[in-house]
């Protein structure tokens, strides 16, 4: 289902730049450490209101609408970006705690931190005196 949607939208050609029908795949950095996984996602032009982060079962979906605040009377003369929406999906491993995701959006960069479930964190076991 998802796979098909992605492919279909990619084959469309923009007829009216104003309508911006295509979806963009945002660039992502993924950093992991003992505490969890950090995702940095480039979403230029996306505001908090236009950002949707959703976890369904173990699928994390990031979707953001670009708002350029353009004048209605603007006639496009050059465009590198032909789409108005960023979309990307990730599968979260069972080692991660999807319920405890921390998200911040600043200057068009989304920072998502997905912590490891407590069970999977390296644990220090205290040895009690006997």
């Amino acid at each position, binding site marked *: 289902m998802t796979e098909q949607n992605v492919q279909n939208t990619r084959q469309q050609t923009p007829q009216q730049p104003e309508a911006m029908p295509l979806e963009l795949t945002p660039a992502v*950095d993924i950093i992991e450490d003992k505490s969890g996984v950090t995702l940095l996602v480039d979403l230029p*032009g996306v505001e908090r209101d236009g950002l949707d982060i959703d976890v369904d079962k173990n699928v994390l979906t990031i979707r953001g609408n670009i*708002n350029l605040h353009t004048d209605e009377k603007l*006639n496009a*003369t*050059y465009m590198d970006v032909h789409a108005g929406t960023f979309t990307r*999906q990730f599968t979260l*491993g069972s080692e991660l705690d999807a319920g405890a995701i921390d998200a911040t959006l600043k200057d*068009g960069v989304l920072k998502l931190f997905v912590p490891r479930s407590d069970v999977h964190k390296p644990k220090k076991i205290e040895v009690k005196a006997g």
Partner: protein
Amino acid sequence: MISNMIRFPSSLFDELDEVFFGFPASVARPRRERAYPPINMGVTDNSVEVYVFLPGMKLEDIDLTIEKNLLSISGKREGEKPEGEDATIYREERFKGSFKRVITLPDDVDPEKTEAVYRNGILHISIAKRSEAQPRKITVKA
């Protein structure tokens, strides 16, 4: 324990690309833009509007100049360094390093009347057209 840590994210994220994109990860990844940053540009009756897609920048790292009718946008985008010693960068698609783009503006602009605003990772530059280039309404007298 260590070997588990290293193996786990790789299996985790490799799986995702195949599942969600249906073709190999190398194809599914966004192609690096030939020119960074991407730019959209348009004109109104009174101005030329330039939108530069430049997320995560500090203002002091953006350099903007207009010379004659050439608009030049340059700067440097730093990568975030992993914080902990045990941190590993598993995927790195975001642009890092120096960039420069030069745009030829129409002849009828007035570079003295330029405004630039950085908001939500978009650098918006608005350059007014010279007053003689702007459409004027002419009143027809009886």
